[in-house]
């Protein structure tokens, strides 16, 4: 199970957004789910950089087009997990 330590080891957290976000007008739970496999496996990537080299500012830019903001993010050895507004 998860421990209380998990509250303090974010790689990114937007405290201002977290404090001001209001879900009063939320009405549509069902999600849109987009999954893009650029390569079949990470070992198939032929260049030096990977998706995980894309900076936070770029993800914020991409997510702005989706009408989402980044609340927090955690990095592990294999993936970056973003928790988003909405």
């Amino acid at each position, binding site marked *: 199970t998860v421990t209380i330590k998990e509250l303090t080891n974010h790689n990114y957290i937007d405290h201002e957004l977290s404090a001001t976000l209001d879900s009063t007008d939320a009405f549509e739970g069902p*999600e*849109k789910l987009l999954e893009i496999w*650029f390569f079949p496996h990470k070992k198939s*990537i032929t260049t030096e950089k*990977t998706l995980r080299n894309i900076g936070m500012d770029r993800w914020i830019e991409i997510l702005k*087009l989706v009408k989402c903001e980044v609340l927090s993010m955690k990095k*592990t050895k294999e993936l970056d*997990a973003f928790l988003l507004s909405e």
Partner: protein
Amino acid sequence: SSLFVFDHKLTMKTCGTTTTLFCLEKLFQIVEQELSWAFRTTQGGKYKPFKVFYSRRCFLFPCKQAAIHQNWADEVDYLNKFFDNGKSYSVGRNDKSNHWNLYVTETDRSTPKGKEYIEDDDETFEVLMTELDPECASKFVCGPEASTTALVEPNEDKGHNLGYQMTKNTRLDEIYVNSAQDSDLSFHHDAFAFTPCGYSSNMILAEKYYYTLHVTPEKGWSYASFESNIPVFDISQGKQDNLDVLLHILNVFQPREFSMTFFTKNYQNQSFQKLLSINESLPDYIKLDKIVYDLDDYHLFYMKLQKKI
């Protein structure tokens, strides 16, 4: 909503009136400019990544969606502007509230494979629940009269603190047996409780597997979703399968209706086989639809169930 970024793939799951597909142009532009990944085909300027999936169940309030997301046909038209090898499916009863849509591109087997070609043995399990039991839904409300109360220290992040407590109170961190503290597998957690209500969480197991939960508990349109790429049978060394996972989730939310989808590359997958004969394991529910698709390199299991009256 959540975004999971791996070295070679990403998964974006967004609710509300988000405009998910509008990120495609920018995303491919950034990938091309910053990573030197060239996926644009010479003919027509469309993109050809290894594989693309786009799916959603029918919306509760489709008219309130923005532009292309108001109907499936428009979304497919939009996707076809980017990809030229996509197929569209409407799965389940094709009425107002009982179907699930899928767009999937043909696997691009010409994608450069690198020196060591290995393909992920991918599986994804998703459960979409509506009309949650009111008492269960109330555990995801943090307004003044909420059942969830938390002592939050000044200067602490209330949304994340309450999210953590909701996770603990509802035992959503105990869905997988190997996420227990005594396991060798790492377990990371990030949850947020929205004000006045709602909940989102990302949980990461063994550094590369995730499960994510999103809850909209409001009476009248209550909804919860669960999605996981955890190969549960393998990772639990045979102690658990996706039927166990499903029963745990249903116990937390007790929805009146739910649908589930399970993608696997391996037809012999233990969870897949168990889900095929699921009926007798859910005595409180009746089956509305049960469908299996053989899709290119994946098998898809879809089932829709409703609580017995």
